[in-house]
C-alpha cells in the first residue's frame, strides 16, 4: 500500500517531462504524467504511449518532451508494445547485454480511448501475461485528441461530439464502463485510482505501482478544459470536487484487498456541483433533461456503496 511522503521529499526526484510540449494550457495529462513519473524515482523508464493528446503533443518531430526512452507505434497497442520492450529487457538482461545501474521501469500510457475502448484488448493481454509493467490510463472522459468523441469512460449524460445533446437526445445514455474493476478482475497485484489534485496520494501510488513486481494498473482522472468546456485554471479544483462527490473514488486494491484512501463522509458533495462548472453538462440543467442528473447521482451513489462493501470482505472483493 502507498505511503505518502512530503512534497519536499518528492521534489528531490527527477522531473521526467520537459516544458516545450504542445499540450493545451491547463491540460491534466501533463500534470498526471509528471506526477506519475516521480513515482519511478531515478530509475530509467521506457514509456509506451498510445496515439492521443499526450503522445501527439509531446513528440512533434523533431522535438520530444520525454527525458526517458519513449515509443509510440499505434493507438490500440500501447500495452502490447511495452510487453515487447519488457520481454526484450528480460532477455537481454539475462544475457548481460543491458548496461544499467538501476533497473528499468516500463510504463504503458493511454488515454481513456487507448485504454477503455480500442486499447482494451492489448491492456487485458498485458495484464494477464504478468509482465513487470505499470499500465496507466489518463482518463479525461472522451477521445479528446480527435475532437471530443465519446468513449466508454464518458460520464452519463455528457455532451460529446458523437453523443451530443439535441432535440431528442440528452447526451451520453450509457453509464461509464468501470475499467478499474476490469483490471482488478485480472488478479494483478496492484490496482489504484488517483487524481492529480492529491499529488501525494498519486505519486505514492505510482511509486507502489513501479516497485510492485508484475503488472500494476493506475486509473487517473485527467481534467480537460477543452473537452469538459471548463475554464483553464479550474482543472485541479474540478478534480477535487469530482473526488469529493465519490464520482472518482481514490482507492487501492492490493492483491485483491480493497482500501478506500479518501471517504468524504459528511462532506460528500452532489455531482451537480461540479457538473455546473463544466459546459459539457450544460444541457442537463434544462428541465426536460433534469432526470439525467438524478439518474447519474443514483448511479454514483450505488457504485460508492458497492465500493465501500468491497472493503469489508475478508479476502478483499472481486470487482
Amino acid at each position, binding site marked *: 500500500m502507498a505511503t505518502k511522503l512530503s512534497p519536499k521529499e518528492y521534489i528531490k526526484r527527477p522531473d521526467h517531462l520537459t516544458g516545450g510540449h504542445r499540450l493545451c494550457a491547463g491540460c491534466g495529462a501533463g500534470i498526471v504524467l509528471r506526477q506519475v513519473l516521480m513515482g519511478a524515482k531515478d530509475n530509467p523508464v*521506457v514509456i509506451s504511449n498510445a496515439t492521443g493528446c499526450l503522445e501527439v503533443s509531446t513528440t*512533434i518531430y523533431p522535438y520530444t518532451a520525454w527525458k526517458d526512452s519513449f515509443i509510440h507505434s499505434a493507438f490500440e497497442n500501447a500495452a502490447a508494445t511495452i510487453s*515487447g520492450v519488457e520481454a*526484450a529487457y528480460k532477455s537481454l538482461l539475462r544475457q548481460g547485454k543491458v548496461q544499467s545501474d538501476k533497473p528499468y521501469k516500463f510504463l504503458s500510457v493511454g488515454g481513456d480511448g487507448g485504454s477503455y475502448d480500442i486499447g482494451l484488448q492489448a491492456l487485458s493481454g498485458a495484464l494477464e501475461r504478468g509482465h513487470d509493467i505499470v499500465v496507466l490510463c489518463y482518463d479525461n472522459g472522451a477521445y479528446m485528441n480527435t475532437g471530443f468523441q465519446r468513449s466508454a469512460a464518458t460520464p452519463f449524460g455528457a455532451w460529446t461530439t458523437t453523443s451530443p445533446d439535441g432535440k431528442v437526445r440528452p447526451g451520453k445514455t450509457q453509464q461509464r464502463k468501470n475499467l478499474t474493476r476490469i483490471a482488478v478482475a485480472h488478479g494483478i497485484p496492484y490496482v489504484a485510482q488517483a487524481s492529480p489534485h492529491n499529488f501525494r496520494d498519486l505519486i505514492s501510488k505510482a511509486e507502489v505501482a513501479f516497485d510492485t513486481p508484475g503488472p500494476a494498473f493506475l486509473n487517473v482522472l485527467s481534467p480537460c478544459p477543452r473537452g469538459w468546456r471548463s475554464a483553464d485554471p479550474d482543472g485541479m479544483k474540478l478534480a477535487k470536487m469530482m473526488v469529493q462527490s465519490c464520482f472518482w473514488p481514490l482507492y487501492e486494491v492490493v492483491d485483491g484487498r480493497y482500501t478506500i484512501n479518501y471517504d468524504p463522509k459528511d462532506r460528500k458533495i452532489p455531482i451537480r456541483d461540479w457538473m455546473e462548472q463544466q459546459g459539457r453538462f450544460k444541457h442537463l440543467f434544462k428541465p426536460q433533461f433534469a432526470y439525467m442528473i438524478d439518474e447519474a447521482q443514483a448511479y454514483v451513489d450505488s457504485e460508492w456503496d458497492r465500493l465501500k462493501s468491497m472493503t469489508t470482505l475478508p479476502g478483499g472483493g472481486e470487482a
Partner: protein
Amino acid sequence: MSTTTEKLLAVTGNQAVAMAMKQLDPDVVAAYPITPQTDVVQTFSQYVADGVVKAEFVTVESEHSAMSACIGSAAAGARTMTATSSAGFALMWEVVYVAASLRLPIIMTTVNRALSGPINIHCDHSDSMGGRDSGWIQIYNEDAQEAYDATVMSFPIAEHADVRLPLMNMYDGFIISGAIGPLRPLSDETVKAFAGEQPVVRTLLKPEEPITVGPFDGLHGWYFEHKIAQNRAMEAALPIIQDTYDRFAEVSGRQYHHLMQYDMEDADVAIVVIGSAAGTARTVIKTLRDEGIKAGLIKIRTFRPFPTEEMARALSGVKAVAVLDRADSFGAQGGPLYLEVLAALYQKGVHTKTVNCIYGLGGRDLYPRNIEDVYRMLADAADGGDLPHSRVYLNMKGE
C-alpha cells in the same frame, strides 16, 4: 568449404523453419497461432519449454499485438522473430507498415493462406501480396529447404546498415507448411556464424542515451522524406540480398538468385511463378521439351525489392510468357505478380506477348495438365497467335 551436414531429414516446412529459429536463437519471439503457421510456433514453444533456446516467448493475445510486441522488442535492441498467415497478417496490417517505417529488422514467417471470405484455410498468396506496399523485404520459398535457408539468411539482410528493414519469408500453406519434405540443415555453428553478431544500433534500453521512437510528423514536417528514405533502403537491399545469397552458397553449396531460372537460356515460351507451383511446372517442362517446345520457367524468390533488371533480362528473348498469380487484385489489369512483371518489362523496353493466369485461390489444386495447357497456349502465341487479354483461370469449376 561447405560445412553442410550430410544428414537428410524428413520434416514439414513449419518444422524446418522452427529448426532454423532454434539455431538462430533470437532474443524475443512474440506470436499468435493461426492455421497453417501454427506448428512453427508450437514447435518453438517446445524448445522454450525444454530450455534449448534463450528466447523470451510472449504468448500475445492477437496478431496485432504480436507485431506490436515485436516492434517494442526490436526497438529495445532485441533480435525478434514471429510468424503468421492470412487473417492474422491482415489483422496486423496497420503495424506491419509501422514496423517498416520504424526501420526495425523484425523477421516474420508468413505461411501463405487465403484471406477470408469465405473463410478458407488453404494456400494462396493473397495474404502476403496484400503487404507488398508495406516496406517489408519479401522472399518467397518453394519448399522446406528454401524456407529453412531463407530463415537462416534473414538477419544479415535485415540488419545490414544500409538496409535496416523488416523481412518476411513466405512458403505455401499446407502444401509446404504441413507436408513432409527433404531438409539438409546446417550445423548450429554454421548458422550462428552466418547470422553473425547483431550490429549495435539505437535502442530504447541505453540509460545514457534515451530516444523517442515513433514521433508525430505532420503537415509541415518530413513524412515524405522518411518515406523516400524507406524506398532507398529497399533499393540498396537488392544487391545486398544477392550478396547474402552468394555468401550462403559458400557455406551450404546452395546458390540462390532473385530469380531462379530453369531452362531459360534458349526458351521461346516461359512461365513466371511463385512458390510450390514451380515444382509442378518443372516436371511439365521435360515433357514439352521432348515435344520440341522450348519451355522455360522463372521462379521468383525476391519479390520486394522487385528484381526489375533481372526479370527484363530473363524474358528479353522470350516470345510469349504466362505470369501465374496465386492471388488477384480485383478490378486491376491482372493479379499482382502480373502487374509487377509487366511494369518491369515495360520499364526496360522488353516487348513480349503476355498473359495472366490466375490459379490456386483458396487452395484449388494446380495439375500438371493445367500447366501443360498454359505452355501450349504460349507455344501457339509464339507461332504468331494471340494471347487472351483478360485473366485465364486455371482449373476453375463450371464454365
